[in-house]
């Protein structure tokens, strides 16, 4: 580890000592479980550690809050997704109940797919999913969604464009 890295981790260590308890109790007010609050708080410092560009921090509590906020948003999004997926499965009467293992795998995948397609309009997502998962051709997708083939091809362009952009980030 280089000297700069050491000083960075020392610096974050100092922040940890002075602000960890504060962050925990602040998070705990909004998360019913103390353990969850501690997890998020710890993750916040881990993120800070892996981002050496941020020193020196003039308002550490503001930055910590911002990072913690993003982590909580991710946690909540995950739960929203999980709940929505389980509900969708539940309403799908003829669908067989997946095993716990399959479900856990599926929820991971769901989260990754959510991030991959994040920000795209619902119609674009629907088009891409029908192509990617159901293997439908554009005329089939157009019929399924009641849109023109021209739109299907536009939506596919937007979806691939986003995925390819993420690849180069």
């Amino acid at each position, binding site marked *: 580890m280089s000297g700069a890295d050491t000083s960075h981790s020392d610096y974050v260590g100092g922040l940890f000592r002075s602000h960890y308890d504060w962050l925990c109790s602040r998070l705990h*007010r*909004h*998360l*019913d479980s103390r353990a*969850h609050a501690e997890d998020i708080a710890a993750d916040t410092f881990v993120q800070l550690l892996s981002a050496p560009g941020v020193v020196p921090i003039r308002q550490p509590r503001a930055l910590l*809050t911002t990072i*913690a*906020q993003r982590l*909580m*948003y991710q946690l*909540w999004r995950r*739960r*929203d*997704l999980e*709940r*929505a*997926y*389980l*509900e*969708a*499965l539940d309403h*799908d009467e*003829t*669908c*067989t*109940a*997946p*095993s*716990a*293992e399959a*479900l*856990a795998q*599926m*929820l*991971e*995948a*769901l989260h*990754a*797919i959510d991030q*991959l*397609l994040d920000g795209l309009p*619902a119609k674009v*997502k*629907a088009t891409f*999913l029908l*192509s*990617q*998962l159901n*293997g*439908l051709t*554009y005329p*089939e997708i157009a019929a399924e969604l009641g849109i023109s083939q021209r739109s299907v*091809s536009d939506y*596919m*362009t937007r979806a*691939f464009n986003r*995925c*390819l952009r993420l*690849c*180069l980030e």
Partner: protein
Amino acid sequence: MNDDLINDATRWYVLLRSGQATAGDWQRYQLWRAADPRHDALCRQLETRLGVFQIPQAQGVSGQLLQQALDAPSSRRQVLQVALVGAGVAAGATWLAKPLGVPLADLTADIRTGTGERRTVTLDDGSELSLNAQSAADIQFDPQRRLVRLREGELLARVAGDRIRPFMIQTYQARLRAYGNRLLVRERAGQGQVVALNGAVEIDSQNGERLQLAAGHEVHYDRAGFGPVQASSSGATAWVDGFLQVRDRPLSEVIEALRPYHNGVLRLDPSVAGLRVSGLYRLDNPQQILDTLARTLPIHITRRTGLWVNVNAA
């Protein structure tokens, strides 16, 4: 530069996915891809990213189902911003206390079978448990009792004699005590069934009802309680030997029995669910059973990638 690269790659993928790409298009795409290492690298990266779709694909999850989940509203970002940054907003966050909806417990079960897998184990007391496919159970023996927890699926118990310790099976919705030495229990998606093969079984349901099931009888139950007690059909344990044996049963029951043997989604059109079926089938090839059924019943089987199977009216 990157924009050009992304736009070119996008055009290729949009064309190749259309269902109208010709062999010539594929050849030209391969040439384009090989023409520059950056083209190839980008394609590889995209393929890696899209690899995540293999999981829903393998599980037969449709685009429509996934779409419903992705459309889940994320309304909490704003709540959070107000709550954290705002001056001590103590807005109740009870919805956060709910545990994640993943019953990971099954991963740690003592005995577990996967799709299409059956297993028989001998317990410490000499009793034998046979688990049907996609089942999981825990063994909890102590000096007072022999308890088996059926977490999911179906099991046949051959109970060894023990003067002191009763043999009990706990499921999500029922508690069984065996007085004989052979019984079968199944519980999937809230629907349970007990068959007393040899000797009586005492069943306590979740809502406090108790039923004495005499040998040679079976009963279905769910959250609401017990169904009518019936004489058991001879085919109930045929799966132990790898067979599905039915006599004048609804098609829906056959499909339910096949689910633990089918990798993926098996959909049954409700309009044909009540068709009557009789026969003896080998469980190990559920696709073949479906084809056989399609030859004798007015049904039509459609398959998408083999994992997604629809059983519809012909």
